[in-house]
């Protein structure tokens, strides 16, 4: 499914996961959300973060 500006929902989830993972002190709720996203994406944390990095740096 695509949303505004053509970004797939999956990419939004990847960016959300990474923004929580980069927090200095993620809260228990943050960890729960990360676990949920990881399960939905069926990807390893390393894969998600690498994809988030590529997505974020596309414009830079």
């Amino acid at each position, binding site marked *: 499914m695509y*949303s*505004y*500006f053509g*970004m797939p*929902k999956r*990419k*939004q989830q990847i*960016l*959300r996961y*990474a*923004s929580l*993972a*980069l*927090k*200095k002190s993620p809260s228990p709720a943050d960890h729960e959300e990360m676990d949920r996203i990881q399960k939905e994406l069926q990807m390893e*944390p*390393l894969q998600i*973060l*690498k994809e*988030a*990095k590529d*997505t*974020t*740096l596309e414009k*830079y």
Partner: protein
Amino acid sequence: MDIEQVALKNEDHLGKLPVSPDYLEKLSEGDEDLQELLEEMTDKCKDYAISVMNLDSYLASEEGIDPEERQELDNSRTRSHNATIDSVKIFIRNLRIKSKDTSWAQSIDLNNRSQVGRFALLYAFADTLQKVQK
């Protein structure tokens, strides 16, 4: 592991990053001021990356864009960018003062906001990826 090996470790994470987080940790070892400044720079780089991702996610939201909220996220990103640039400059300046290696910083134009921003994003992800792998 010597310092050159540390510098080369995890190259696959680094992309075009001119230095690894491990290398900067090694450079700062035994110096509390440098360690504190490195931690500050790392935190600012991550805050900046988060602000960039938050704005990108918001712009891609299916719920529509509120101009005021967009402006606030944009302002937050700009404030974070400014703080990151300051922290990178301060860390590098202190490395120079303490006669530590700053050759890696030659590839970054510290007066170019875009270049420092790119460095910050690469550094934030490299540090996080390195920690996830350990």
